[in-house]
Structures are given as structure tokens and as C-alpha cells.
């Protein structure tokens, strides 16, 4: 290829987009069809309200374009969506984009805290396990990571609430801030439990992964060579093994970071954390279809983007990888 190295990232981006665009179309089409196949469609929530007259519903349906065939509605929605018009929430008539933007900081705060905690914990636990392979610290770390992989997030959240909020009273059980209090300490206290739940689940998966790739790194020729030169084991681990094993972990962390938009649905809901996850569950309960569509697109889109970022970061970090 003529342009050589410079075109590689561009090619990778193009290749990802070639699958991402049809994927986003299919996902949005399926969700759109599902919502419109439901009895009452997007106005189902009004049908159940005795205060709303049939003629009002008819007027609303005409106003929303619901008297048109589904594919026309979908094309209209898509056209508006790509122009940045995400529609209006049926719950409070506000622009969906505003509602999404208003909830984003809380989710990002939770994501940053949990990823940070999980990354530090993973690093410490996996290094400890790899240094003591087969002995008790390794066994404890592996057992804990197996437990973290199997624990249902919603139940873990309820247990933490029960212990630290209801019984001990150390931490608030839900919300992001105490009304009337906006201090940093208050915010951190609210953040601890939900961040612990997400961090535990991520650290469990990452530790398992990092430990395995560290153990595999021990067999690398450069580690054998380092040992032969008489370099102490501790130094070998920190200098060579960790460095070789951290590289693949970076991609895993990036991919999991993308999942936090949708993955936080469970944790945010248990702790009434006012982020995107609770926006989704609220919209689901009220059949607020514009919000649901926006959330599905946001969640799929962030996975696509982070996949791409992970590819590029990996190529950038590891010169051996060619796309």
C-alpha cells in the first residue's frame, strides 16, 4: 500500500464503520418495531389513563405521526435522529437530548470511580496471585474472583445496602447527594456503595484475565533470559511480566468501559443513582419510546466507538500488531 503506516488507523476505522452502521440500523429497527408492535404503541401509557379522552389520543397519535405506516415513522425518526433531533420525552415533553445530557455526569462519575477502583484492585490482586502461584494468596484471589464473576449485581447491591446502610448506618443507601447538602464528603459517601458493586464485578473479570496473562508471561523467553542473568524474581515480575501482561488488559478495560452505559442499569437502579441507567428504567416503566430509542442507540454506539478505540490503542501500544 502506498501510504503505508499512515493509512492503517484510517483503514481500521473504515472497517469498523462498515459493520457498525448496518448494526446500528438493525438494532434501532428491531427496537422501533418492538415498541410499535406493542398494544397501544407508544401511547400505551395514555390509554391506561381514564382522564384522557379517545379524541385526545387520536390527536396525539396524529401529532406524533403514529397514523403513518411503521416504516415511514422509522425513516422519519432516523432522519431526525442523525440530525441531532432525538425527539421529546412523553413523560415531561422535554427534549430527549437534554434529559440524556442532564443524566450523563452522574453515570460518568460512577463509571470513573468504579473503573479506577477496579483497576487498582486488579493490579494489586493479580500481581499478588502471580507472585504466589499455587499457594494460599493465589488461591484466595482466584476464589474471590470466581465469586465476583458469579454474584448477581442487584443482589450484591441489596446486601451492601442492608449491611452498610440499614444495619451499620455508615453510608447512605441511595441517591447521589443528600438534599440540602452538597459537600464533597456527602457526595463521596453516596458514591461508595454503587461504585463498590461495579468495581467488584469488573475487578473479578480483570483479575482473572491479568493473572492468566501474567502466568503465561512467565514462560516468555525474555523472562527466562532475565532469570538466567540472576535478576531477582520480584524485579522480574514488576519489570517484565507486568508490562507484558498489562497490554492486553488495556483493551479489556476499554471494552468494559463502553458497557458501563448499559451495565450500570442494574446498579444505578438498586441505588437510585440518577444517571443514564435509571433514565432507561424510568423510560421503560412509562413506555417513553423516544428516550428508550436514544438510550439503545447511545449504548450500542458507545460499544462501537470503544471497540474502535481499543483497536487503535492496541496497535499504538504494541508495534507487533498489524491491522
Amino acid at each position: 500500500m502506498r501510504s503505508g503506516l499512515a493509512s492503517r488507523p484510517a483503514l481500521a476505522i473504515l472497517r469498523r464503520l462498515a459493520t457498525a452502521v448496518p448494526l446500528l440500523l438493525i438494532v434501532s429497527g428491531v427496537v422501533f418495531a418492538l415498541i410499535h408492535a406493542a398494544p397501544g404503541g407508544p401511547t400505551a401509557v395514555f390509554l391506561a389513563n381514564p382522564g384522557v379522552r379517545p379524541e385526545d389520543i387520536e390527536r396525539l397519535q396524529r401529532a406524533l405521526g403514529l397514523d403513518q405506516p411503521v416504516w415511514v415513522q422509522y425513516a422519519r425518526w432516523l432522519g431526525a435522529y442523525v440530525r441531532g433531533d432525538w425527539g421529546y420525552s412523553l413523560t415531561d415533553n422535554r427534549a430527549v437530548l437534554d434529559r440524556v445530557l442532564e443524566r450523563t455526569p452522574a453515570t460518568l462519575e460512577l463509571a470513573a470511580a468504579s473503573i479506577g477502583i477496579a483497576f487498582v484492585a486488579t493490579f494489586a490482586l493479580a500481581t499478588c496471585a502471580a507472585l504466589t502461584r499455587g499457594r494460599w494468596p493465589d488461591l484466595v484471589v482466584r476464589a474471590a474472583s470466581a465469586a465476583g464473576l458469579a454474584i448477581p449485581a442487584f443482589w450484591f447491591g441489596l446486601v451492601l445496602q442492608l449491611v452498610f446502610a440499614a444495619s451499620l448506618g455508615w453510608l447512605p443507601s441511595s441517591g447521589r447527594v443528600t438534599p440540602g447538602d452538597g459537600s464533597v464528603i456527602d457526595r463521596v459517601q453516596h458514591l461508595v456503595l454503587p461504585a463498590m458493586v461495579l468495581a467488584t464485578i469488573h475487578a473479578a473479570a480483570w483479575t482473572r484475565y491479568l493473572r492468566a496473562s501474567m502466568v503465561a508471561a512467565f514462560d516468555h523467553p525474555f523472562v527466562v533470559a532475565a532469570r538466567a542473568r540472576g535478576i531477582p524474581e520480584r524485579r522480574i515480575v514488576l519489570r517484565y511480566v507486568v508490562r507484558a501482561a498489562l497490554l492486553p488488559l488495556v483493551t479489556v478495560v476499554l471494552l468494559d468501559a463502553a458497557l458501563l452505559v448499559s451495565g450500570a442499569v442494574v446498579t444505578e437502579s438498586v441505588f437510585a443513582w440518577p444517571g443514564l441507567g435509571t433514565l432507561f428504567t424510568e423510560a421503560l416503566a412509562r413506555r417513553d419510546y423516544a428516550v428508550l430509542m436514544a438510550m439503545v442507540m447511545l449504548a450500542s454506539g458507545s460499544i462501537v466507538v470503544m471497540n474502535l478505540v481499543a483497536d487503535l490503542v492496541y496497535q499504538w501500544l504494541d508495534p507487533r500488531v498489524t491491522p
Partner: protein
Amino acid sequence: MTRSGTIAALVLSLLVSAAAAAPLVSRYAPDALDLANRRAAPSAQHWFGTDDLGRDVFARVLHGARVSLAVGLLAAAVAGGIGVIVGGIAGLVGGAVDATLMRLTDALLAVPRLLLLMIAGAILSPSVSLLIVLVGSVGWMETARVARSECLSLSTREFVAAAHATGARAPRILGRHLLPNAAGPVLVAITLAVARSILLESTLSFFGVGVQPPAASWGSMLYQAQSTVSTEPWLALFPGAFIFATTLSVNVVGDELARPKL
């Protein structure tokens, strides 16, 4: 077999037999009301306590196990079936078919499955059998990858070449030579799918969009318990502990199956 593998297998077989023999194990029917003993804490009479209608939580957990385990196992079977077919075709046919199927598999892994299933569940109010299909149809991609890579590596082996040479056709090679030899890793992938399916079903049910009343799974018991968790914690603790123990045991057994045999 390691000690943890043995314990996990024991836990699972105990759980499955207790669920199968639930009416014999528990003194109470799961829907029997005992209005004099409503919201009772765990005791010798009611091991796991009672709920707001005086129903025995132990009996409900055992009967809930039937729903949770059935959904987990059958959804994993659906996922495994689709995965083996897709992965088998991709690995055996190769070329453009392989590229297309694997591109599709990768693409579907990038779909936020939980959100889609929550929307589907809220709109369809699924029956247990529809729920099995829904959970199974989003969980086949991992198995497809394993089945494909096994088929690819096996198809370079001499006995497959020999079968080709004797004039065997693709379906025979797949069914007779590739799949039986790929069974081990595929079985591991399906086992892990069981744990994922149980977790996914319980999460959906926890949001009230999975198993619908009067049927009750561990997840839907938690859905009903979450508002009273501080006053009657046993309603939430026991079903959740059973989900945890089950997925943990299934994962450990899966890891055990994946260990290289000597």
C-alpha cells in the same frame, strides 16, 4: 478433579434434586397462605421465613429453583444449538460464508443485550418458554466462536483429510468427525452459557420484565422483595444467595471441564 470442582458438582446435584423433589423436601406448598404467620423471620417452623402473605420462603425458593434452572439450562441449550450450527458452518465451509458469519457474530456481541431484552420483556410480558427463546437467542455468539475455531483446527487433521479422501460429504464430516471431537470445548462454552443465562433471567425478572406471576423464579422473588429489604431482609437474601451459589457452582464446574486432562 479438584476439591472446588467436587464441591461445586455436589452443590449443583443437591440443588437440582431438591428442586426436582421440591414437594417432598418442603413441608409447605409454595402458594399456601398462612395469614397468622405473615412476614415471619426465619425459624425452625419456616426455615427461610415467610412473605407478606404468609407463604413459606423455603418452599418458594425450591419451586423458584425449578423455573430458574429450567430457564438457565434450556436457554443455554438454545444458545448452544444456534452456536454450534453457526460456528460449525463457518468453520467447515470457510471463505466468504465464514467471514460473513463471524462478522455477524462480532457485530452481535456489540449489541447491548440487557437493554434490548428489557425492552422486549416489558413489551411482550413473556411466557417462560418465550423467555427461554429470548435469553437463548442473545447468548449463542460465544459458543459459535468456540465451535468455529475447533472445527478449523480439527479440519486440518489427518483423519478429516482421510474422510475427505474416502468421499465423505460435509454433513457427515461435521457430524461424525468434527463435532464429536469438538464436544469438549463446546460443552465448556455451553456450561458457561448456563451461568450467564441464569444471571440474565434473574436480572430481567428482578426488573419485573422476565418471569411473570404466578410463576416465580429467584429473580422475580427479589423483584417483590426489594421494597421491604430493610424490614424483611430474608425475602431478598435467600433467593439471591441461591442465584449466587448456582452461577458460582456452574462456573467452577465449567472451569473444571476446561482443565486439560492428564
